């Protein structure tokens, strides 16, 4: 498998009143063709900014991708492309769906228009053909009566349907990469499962590689093949999904796992299950450079070395790498 997307040393920074925020601080990963990669972490760890950075959608007034960052798509360096060239790429070869289906669709345009304009823009289809394509796409994401629905406005659709529309829109030009930023977080649990199943099924059909960004390890376990764990703007661990769940190496990853409710753990004699544990402490401020390991302040294993020297990645074999001085691979 050759990588379709290679991200190297991505640094994205924002100017705020309190100083420069290093939202993403040297993240690297690869995405193989047709693969589903999960990026997981707490809110504020930089996973959404990573997604926006790949499409270069960081608002230029406040933020920037720092020099030295590299994002290669099919071997082409995206950080050097002009805005016009990026526009031709977005929604066509790399597309994106967002967390809030309620607010991510334009309320004053019909869903048909919103899907069709993408097709017209990138595939040059005339209006009528583009609208026919929109109907086809709505059918593909299993929206009933698509011929009528194309003429409806977002407020006439339920949350789940809107996310289906978002997916239809994102896939309408057969992209090679789909970036899904918390696609199910805002939805009901039952609808979440349907949307995830739909995404996986469509991925099988179209061969689109997916970057799935989520804070939900359950979603990661169900849908992805490989996982990148992020903390405070940095990648701390990366592994094939089974390896990660069988043998989480980074103390932060372990902390995340302990925070998942589990049904497979037996209740003890008194009938109580082990309590869910949360990771003590807070994410460090990103306005000042972090010396040493970003997690050191919250880590029970932290030593002086952790606080002064950033840990290098250690290869645990089988594509499992971790950045921790104390992890025993």
């Amino acid at each position, binding site marked *: 498998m050759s990588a379709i997307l290679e991200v190297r040393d991505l640094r994205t920074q924002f100017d705020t009143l309190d100083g420069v925020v290093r939202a993403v601080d040297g993240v690297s990963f690869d995405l193989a063709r047709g693969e589903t990669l999960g990026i997981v972490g707490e809110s504020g760890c930089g996973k959404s900014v990573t997604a926006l950075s790949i499409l270069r959608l960081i608002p230029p007034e406040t933020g920037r991708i720092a020099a030295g960052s590299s994002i290669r798509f099919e071997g082409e360096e995206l950080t050097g492309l002009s805005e016009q060239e990026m526009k031709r790429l977005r929604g066509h070869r790399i597309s994106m769906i967002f967390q809030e289906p309620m607010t991510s669709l334009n309320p004053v345009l019909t869903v048909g228009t919103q899907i069709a304009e993408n097709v017209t823009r990138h595939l040059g289809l005339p209006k009528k053909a583009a609208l026919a394509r929109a109907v086809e796409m709505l059918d593909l994401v299993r929206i009933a009566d698509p011929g009528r629905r194309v003429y409806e406005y977002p407020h006439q659709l339920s949350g789940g349907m809107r996310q289906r529309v978002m997916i239809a829109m994102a896939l309408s030009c057969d992209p090679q990469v789909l970036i899904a930023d918390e696609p199910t977080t805002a939805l009901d649990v039952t609808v979440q499962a349907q949307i995830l199943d739909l995404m996986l099924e469509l991925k099988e059909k179209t061969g689109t590689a997916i970057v799935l960004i989520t804070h939900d390890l359950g979603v990661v376990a169900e849908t992805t093949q490989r996982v990148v764990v992020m903390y405070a703007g940095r990648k701390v661990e990366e592994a094939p999904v089974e390896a990660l769940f069988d043998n989480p190496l980074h103390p932060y990853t372990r902390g995340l796992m302990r925070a998942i409710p589990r049904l497979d753990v037996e209740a003890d004699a008194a009938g109580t299950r082990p309590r869910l544990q949360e990771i003590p*402490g*807070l994410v*460090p401020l990103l306005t000042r450079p972090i010396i040493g390991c970003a997690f050191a302040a919250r880590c029970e294993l932290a030593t002086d070395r952790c606080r002064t020297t950033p840990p290098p990645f250690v290869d645990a074999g089988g594509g499992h790498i971790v950045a921790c001085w104390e992890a025993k691979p």
Partner: protein
Amino acid sequence: MVAIADDLPLPPRRFSLGTAIRRNPTIAFGGILLLLLLTVAIFGPSFVGDPLKIAPVNRLRPPSERWWFGTDQFGRDLFTRTVYGSRVSLIVGLSVAAFSSLLGLALGLACGYFRRVDGIVMRIMDGLMAIPSILLAIALITLTRPSLFIVIVAIVIPEVPRIVRVVRAVVLSIRSQPYIESAIAGGTRNAKLLWRHVLPNTLAPLIVQSTYVCASAMLVEAGLSFLGAGVPPEVPSWGNIIAQGRTFFQIAPWSILIPGGFLALTVLAVNLLGDGLRDRLDPRLARRL
């Protein structure tokens, strides 16, 4: 948690005029400009001559060292007249702002608070709002003898509905707040409720709105005087000076452009002050305009 709060020293906060001006450039600029104009309006007339003194020999002189702003067709010194004119503009602007704010506040509080009053008063306000303000003033003036007081009354009437609407909206939104509802349920008296909770909240939008009313009043007064329906012609107001300059505009453009420039500058100062206050006091409104 504590560990992080520790290494976050807050910058020391001391008041400094320089910082205050840099933070609110529009308030500072508008305020200073307005203070200057106020000074001229209050003290200026004692230092200049008689604004009504006619000197036909010196008619239509362009601005020069002797007549800074030139003279009009009667040889009257336009600098003197412009200085006097600032009085009329500021008196009208400030008193219209004050009267319409008080009246509007009273009506707005009543409307927001008493359902029965609301229906009637708001119908009347809708009707008044339908009449363009200058026409409403004109109608009133047609029926009375011209005087500064009548002009002020004529401008106050169309401005009141604007204030009423703002105040009423604030009162209604505050009344639906949980803390007010619980105060009502707890048996707090109406008067106390109005005084302690509602009134303070109306102040910021009221102040902002009244600066706009002040600017608008100055423009309407000048417009009325320009049309010959404002303050009596023997009172030098900027609108009057401009109206009298019309006939000889081609050869004496200064008689219109200079007082006109002062009028625009004054309105600009008030508007800037209003914009600055709005950004500062009423961020919700600030985002909308």
